[in-house]
């Protein structure tokens, strides 16, 4: 793709940026006009958000954040670039590798494939919110002790996918653990350690740790 945009910053909206870049101008203006027309005809209750920045409220790790984003901003970009929560990693950015896995209302979700605007009103949990500062969640501890990582880049995604699974299925078999984490990839190949960690974590969590 030849078109790349600058990181969204205050004072340089995407629209302003487009208007200065020639080729893309007409498309941007026409759709903008369409959206404004729609907005004007909508009742106050029936709002159409976008394509410009809209105020959104996200609940992340128990805290409320108000921010302005364009509706096309992914949850992952909002978390990483706006809220400085960089535990969820951006690797494939297309819903394949699982490094960006977070919990949305307790369910595993790829933050790269979800829009921030659609994450409103939901409880989002990232790896940063898993345990109090300075403490290890039993799942994280199980990953450490079972050698479930090598470079560690995929680990936050694995830990969160594991959390989503164990919260609903506290007694997994190894085969079930394998299936539950099928959406997370580790290029170092630490899957054997990961599966051991899931079973170990399940035992630890039952022990109330």
């Amino acid at each position: 793709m030849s078109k790349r945009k600058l990181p969204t910053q205050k004072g340089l909206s995407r629209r302003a940026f487009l208007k200065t870049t020639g080729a893309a101008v007409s498309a941007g203006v026409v759709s903008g006009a369409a959206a404004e027309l729609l907005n004007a005809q909508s009742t106050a209750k029936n709002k159409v958000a976008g394509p410009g920045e809209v105020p959104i409220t996200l609940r992340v790790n128990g805290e409320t954040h108000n921010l302005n984003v364009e509706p096309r901003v992914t949850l992952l970009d909002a978390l990483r670039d706006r809220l400085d929560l960089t535990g969820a990693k951006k690797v494939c950015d297309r819903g394949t590798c699982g490094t960006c896995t977070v919990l949305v209302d307790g369910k595993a979700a790829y933050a790269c494939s979800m829009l921030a605007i659609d994450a409103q009103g939901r409880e989002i949990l990232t790896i940063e919110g898993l345990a109090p500062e300075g403490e290890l969640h039993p799942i994280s501890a199980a990953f450490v002790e079972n050698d479930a990582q090598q470079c560690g880049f995929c680990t936050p995604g694995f830990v969160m996918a594991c959390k989503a699974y164990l919260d609903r299925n506290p007694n997994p078999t190894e085969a079930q653990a394998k299936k539950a984490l099928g959406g997370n990839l580790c290029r170092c190949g630490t899957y054997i350690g990961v599966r051991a960690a899931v079973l170990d974590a399940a035992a630890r969590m039952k022990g109330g740790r």
Partner: protein
Amino acid sequence: MRAYLPQFELITPTALEDALKLLAREPGQWEPFAGGTDLMVLLEAGKLAHQRFLNIWRLKELHGMEETRENVTLGALTTYTEVQKHETLQREFPLLCRAAAVTGSVATQNRGTLGGNIANASPAADSPPALLVYDAELELLSARGARWVRYAQFHKGYKQMDLAPDELIARIRLPRRANVAPGFSPASWGWHEYYSKVGTRSAQAISKVCFAGAAQMANGRIADIRIALGSVAPTVVRCAKTEEFLRAEEKLTPAAVQKAQEILAGEIAPIDDFRSTARYRRRVAQNLLGEFLGSAVR
């Protein structure tokens, strides 16, 4: 890996009326965007010509499920996870639940929708063969009104659909196979159901061949049968000629099974691509039919 957001515009209506109005005013300009599990992939890969997207996730009319005596109707935004957990679907439409369980990964299933799977129109999609077996119907909605179409007639060719540029897929209706008594299951009426997805690995893989079949057995004979496949033609296909042949057979002899496999080969048109070869796909499709029929008479 992309460092920045790809360039596209997206608007998010919260009322169905607004969404339909926009589609009516600028038909073909706005690509509906649901769970994003297909579109985000293409967007990030830079493979999508579209620049303007209509986020329909907030339209509550497109969520939810409804049961009547005759039908189970699913909102187009029903996720694979919701499908798997639904008790009536588990009991009466098990192939759909099995398809949902092998689509993508857990995180994909939490966001991906049935309507999105249909609108993406991939011949390799996993839930459409199940929808074909169950004679699903689609409700298409536009500012002009609503219409119902048979899903079997919805895909017109590779990525071609009977869907006007101003229409949204709103609901998917599954006719129930008999009047429903509490605890009814098609198995108790002799229905045997079979689903198999052949791919490179069990999570995240796109099918090489996908097979859904349901047969109603009565005294060792096939009373009714439905067969549909994915990844073996420009669209997902229902194999009517194979079904017709099998319905007419008195007994499922090895010779009859072999004949059915030959007919099946004539009803599909697999190709060579980076996932598999035409030869492999044809052979595996035939083998899956054999396995399905074998398991039905057992």
